[in-house]
């Protein structure tokens, strides 16, 4: 067995150029599968948090009269306590704290704080930073009772962070009816921001919150334009990305098989000579498997590096794919070795 392994590694070294081409092709297959899987998993995750029927708006100012600003904010605030969620950049708090401050309003803040203690439905606020989640940042004069603590960020929060460049940001999760107090002496940008970032789900729509929200802005200085576009990402991935990925994978696997057969042909005469000299099929099998196993192990290592050594779904998918490739090659070898006839003349086979 030791000799078979040693001969396998000798073959590998002898055909190292082919080995590296093999490895590159296999890694390419894995990277393509990783990217496609990531896109699909992310999209499915998005769906699972019920973003399929989001109501999104573009705000169009239609008047210079902003006298109804605070009234609008108060109404929007009341409504967002009934359903939906949004966030905006608070000029007032930014100037107070000295750091970019984002205010998140959600009818059910527990959605955002799924790893934290339940929040009361009364006036409430919570503060944390992007950089120092879970650490006390600062206390300041807050118009409402405050609590400083930690939380996990949900996908909704991700969306907030994506829109910011700063590392240190104060996020205020708010469940209050007095938002208008926070927006005193500010211009229309905050209400623009609030409306631009608003999200409703199917339940909100069913409960009439969406219609109520739109009604607030009738006859105001802002006109809402609904961007209720269907979420076509999954359809696109399944209809276009996956067939393209499948095509590339099949092409690469065919290339790999051709290379493997050419390598096998090179070694075939040598294997036959070994069989004549007393090698068992098992010894030849072990010898040949060294090439494939090394290839797979190195590829798996490469994938792990790219995947940050995380044992997640993507790693599982890649592992299963590599295992399948391994079995296909081993089966191919088994069939060829089992069928071979060592009594044929070897003349001219070189």
């Amino acid at each position, binding site marked *: 067995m030791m*000799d*078979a392994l040693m*001969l396998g590694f000798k073959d590998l070294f*002898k055909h190292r150029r082919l080995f590296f081409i093999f490895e590159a092709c296999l890694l390419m297959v894995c990277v393509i599968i990783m990217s496609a899987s990531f896109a699909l998993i992310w999209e499915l995750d998005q769906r699972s948090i019920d973003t399929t029927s989001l109501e999104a708006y573009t705000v169009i100012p239609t008047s210079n009269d902003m006298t109804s600003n605070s009234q609008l904010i108060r109404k929007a605030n009341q409504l967002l306590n009934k359903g939906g969620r949004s966030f905006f950049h608070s000029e007032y708090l930014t100037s107070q704290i000295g750091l970019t401050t984002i205010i998140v309003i959600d009818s059910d803040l527990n959605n955002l704080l799924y790893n934290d203690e339940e929040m009361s439905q009364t006036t409430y606020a919570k503060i944390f930073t992007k950089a120092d989640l879970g650490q006390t940042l600062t206390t300041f004069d807050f118009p409402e009772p405050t609590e400083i603590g930690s939380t996990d960020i949900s996908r909704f929060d991700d969306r907030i962070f994506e829109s910011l460049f700063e590392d240190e940001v104060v996020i205020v999760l708010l469940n209050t009816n007095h938002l208008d107090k926070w927006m005193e002496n500010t211009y229309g940008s905050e209400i623009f921001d609030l409306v631009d970032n608003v999200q409703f789900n199917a339940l909100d729509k069913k409960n009439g919150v969406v219609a109520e929200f739109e009604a607030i802005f009738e006859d105001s200085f802002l006109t809402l334009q609904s961007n209720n576009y269907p979420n076509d990402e999954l359809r696109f991935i399944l209809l276009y990305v996956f067939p393209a990925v499948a095509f590339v994978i099949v092409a690469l696997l065919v290339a790999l098989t051709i290379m493997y057969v050419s390598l096998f042909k090179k070694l075939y*005469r*040598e294997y036959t*000579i*070994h*069989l*004549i*000299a*007393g*090698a*068992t*099929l*098992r*010894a030849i099998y072990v010898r040949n498997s060294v090439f494939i196993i090394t290839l797979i192990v190195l590829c798996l290592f490469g994938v792990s590096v790219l995947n940050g050594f995380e044992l997640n779904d993507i790693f599982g998918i890649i592992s299963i794919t590599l295992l399948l490739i391994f079995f296909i090659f081993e089966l191919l070898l088994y069939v060829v070795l089992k069928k071979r*006839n*060592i*009594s044929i*003349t*070897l*003349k*001219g086979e*070189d």
Partner: protein
Amino acid sequence: MRLLALENLSKVYHKNTRSETHVLENCSFELNKGDILVISGESGSGKSTFLNITGLLDKVYDGEYTIRGQAVKKLNNNQLAILRNEMFGIVFQDYVLVEHASAYENIIIPLYYSKKYKRKERRHRIREIAQTLKIEDILDKSVSQLSGGQRQRVAIARALINDPDVLLLDEPTSALNPDLALDILKFILSFGQKHHKTIVLVTHDTQTLPNVFNKHYQLIQGKMTLS
């Protein structure tokens, strides 16, 4: 002591098809330890097929083949591989060497699967055989760089390396010039006699054979006759 026996051996290629060919028909013979046997015949008379069956390279045939009283057909692939390794050393007409490997790497092949020689004894054993065949200085050379005579000696060294009981020689000198061919044949036969080896020599040319064999069979159209 009877080493191996073949009884009513027949071999048909492409059985039950249009191109069905009867290569061997009811051939029988037996071989004792130390025998030197020559099988001669024209091209296509079935000499190589006969050698393939004898050397356990072909197991599809009709008839009985026993080695030391054991029926070959009852042996599994692993047992056949062990027998091939321990009992037979085969020299082919076209040498059958691994071209990109060195002479040393070719000669060592049977030792990888041998139970007769331990790993640490391999190098010494190869030196010993190489010395006998006068090829010590070409051991590290690639086979592709060797002359016909040197390649033949490497093939013989590989056949002898595991100290087999039976040497099967399939037209071993057909690719060499007559003088060199005779030298090599003389060497093999004297080596066989000295070490009490059983030798089966298959050839189409019996004119140049040294007269040291015990039996001479002729294969004519698949039928074996003692001459």
